[in-house]
């Protein structure tokens, strides 16, 4: 067990392109840190630099207080689970798990005890004599984890370990990994592109984009206080709605109307021209399901619902709107950066399951501007962070 400190880590490839640019992250002992971002953001490269499979161009990597920049992977005593598991197909499950111990020249008796212990933890007892080719995806995944936990490594590193599993198994294994990590209490760095995994597993989450660390915070903080447009759009599903907005006289003007804004938020954003307002789907509600007397009628607007998705416990409604070309371009750029695609400018709102709002009809919606964030459209910075 150890801390992992990354200090101004830079990775440049031959063409001078920085895949990872000046990233500094301290991972505390026993912490579960997630590296998340769209493909090509440098998260896997960073992980491979921790384990030693990639050279570090500049900066310091400290594991347990010791600088490891120039140490070979085998001398760093870390264990890693690869995306495609990388099991040794010519060895049985038992020998796969025992492999690191055999390399470390342990005694047969000790190896046996350790392997049995790991296999028990991961429920692999009945598969020990089988070859990886005869195992299912989930079982292979567990063998890969067994190989990682069998020796007392300083930290676990996971490189998108669940991306090859089907959705149901992924959910189960996610819980399993969380449980295992809590039980063993070992420092863990986990790379994923899936924001659900990031939010559910991590003590802290580092969001990266194009090699640059955007925000390092707890999942709740990322969700509620994103520092910029990218983080706001990347975290959350369905994603945050972005709308063109202007703030004047304590009121915010959106394409749907003008609504009062809390004084502290208004103070920071007033008179700054066209801004980008970010508001999550759950901060809208169908007026008809809000109790009488609790409704603030200054914050309602009429909307035309285009498509409605009923999920049982809640429902999503889509409200298309027209936006200026400049705003549309920016929204497209944002969507592209987070690996998604926005075809049209629309508002996604999450309504109570009891709402009877119908498709292709007009409904009055409530908008909770207290929870709204306002972003500078040029820099993408959140102007209302912490408010």
């Amino acid at each position: 067990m150890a801390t992992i400190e990354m200090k101004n880590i830079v990775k440049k490839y031959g063409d001078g392109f920085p895949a990872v640019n000046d990233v500094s992250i301290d991972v505390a002992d026993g912490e579960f840190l997630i590296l998340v971002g769209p493909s090509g953001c440098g998260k896997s490269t960073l992980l491979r630099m921790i384990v030693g499979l990639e050279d570090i161009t500049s900066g310091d990597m400290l594991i347990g207080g010791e600088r490891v920049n120039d140490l070979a992977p085998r001398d760093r005593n870390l264990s890693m689970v690869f995306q495609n598991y990388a099991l040794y197909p010519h060895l049985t499950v038992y020998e796969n798990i025992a492999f690191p111990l055999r390399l470390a020249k342990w005694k047969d008796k000790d190896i046996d005890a350790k392997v049995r212990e790991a296999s028990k933890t991961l429920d692999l007892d009945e598969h020990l004599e089988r070859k990886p080719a005869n195992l299912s995806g989930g079982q292979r995944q567990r063998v890969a984890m067994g190989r990682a936990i069998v020796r007392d490594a300083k930290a676990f590193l996971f490189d998108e370990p669940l991306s090859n599993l089907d959705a149901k198994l992924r959910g189960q294994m996610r819980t399993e990994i969380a449980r295992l990590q809590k039980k063993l209490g070992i420092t863990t760095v986990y790379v994923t592109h899936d924001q659900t995994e990031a939010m559910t597993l991590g003590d802290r989450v580092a969001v990266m984009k194009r090699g640059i660390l955007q925000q390092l915070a707890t999942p709740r903080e990322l969700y509620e206080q994103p520092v910029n447009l990218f983080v706001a759009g990347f975290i959350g599903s369905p994603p945050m709605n972005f709308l063109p907005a202007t703030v004047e006289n304590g009121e915010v003007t959106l394409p749907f109307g003008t609504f009062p804004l809390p004084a502290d938020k208004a103070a920071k954003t007033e008179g700054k021209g066209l801004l980008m307002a970010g508001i999550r789907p759950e901060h809208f509600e169908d007026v008809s399901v809000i109790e009488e007397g609790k409704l603030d009628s200054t914050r309602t607007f009429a909307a035309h619902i285009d498509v409605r998705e009923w999920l049982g416990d809640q429902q999503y409604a889509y409200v298309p709107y027209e936006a200026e070309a400049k705003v549309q371009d920016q929204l497209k750029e944002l969507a592209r950066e987070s690996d998604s695609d926005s075809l049209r400018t629309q508002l996604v709102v999450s309504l109570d399951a009891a709402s009877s709002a119908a498709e292709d009809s007009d409904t009055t919606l409530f908008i909770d501007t207290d929870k709204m964030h306002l972003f500078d459209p040029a820099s993408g910075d959140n102007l209302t962070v912490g408010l």
Partner: protein
Amino acid sequence: MKNLKGNLGTILGCALILIWCLLPVAWIVSLSFKSQEAVTNGSPGFFPSSGGGAGWANYTKVLKDDQFRQSIINSIGISLIATLLSVILATLAAYAIARLEFRGKKFVLTTALVIAMFPVVSLVGPLFDMWRTLGIYNTWPGLIIPYMSFTLPLAIWTLSAFFREIPWEMEQAAQVDGATSWQAFRKVIVPLAAPGVFTAAILTFFFAWNDFVFGISLTSTDKARPIPAALSFFVGDDPFSRPASVLAAGAVVATIPIVVLVLFFQRKIVAGLTAGAVKG
């Protein structure tokens, strides 16, 4: 009905190909059991006619012959050593070509190919002179060296293709698990490339075993002469009539090791050994 017809076609096709391929072999075997008289008299039957059969006489004659026995030992020794060295060198070279980035990688590969394309005969003259100067004419090394250099290119190409198929992650996983580069190579990569190693070994052995040109021109006595060359020198009791049936017996004996080798290694060349390493 249509199915049966299709099957019939397949069976017929297979039978034709088998006959085409095996007839010469069968004829040699048949010949080796005929007596010398039956051959000179022109007994055309496939099975030795009554009285024309020689039983195992030809084989005992061949195996009792000192020259022939020595040439078998030469052939086995030379081919095995050449195969072993060639496969070891090719494995290391192919691994470097598949995995490492170094200057002149393309050059090595193309040079290897060029060597493979060189006509063997054109090198015999120079080698003959060189070997006599160096004093390795008519020795085992004198044959092992050319065999190696002619089989290395093919072995390198085959093996580097196999190495490229093995996912990088296997090796990286081994390194993270605490292996040195050499350990990762020996404990993970080589076992996974085993089918390729055996393929290369068989091809190399074939070349060395079947070679005639080097065998006959770089040797002068039994000391290093391999079987194919020895067979051509085989003259029995009467120098003026070549003992066809005894030669046939010798040819059969020379074929047996190859057949045994293929049957033995065939089991090792299991395709899809890497299945299950990574999610496909």
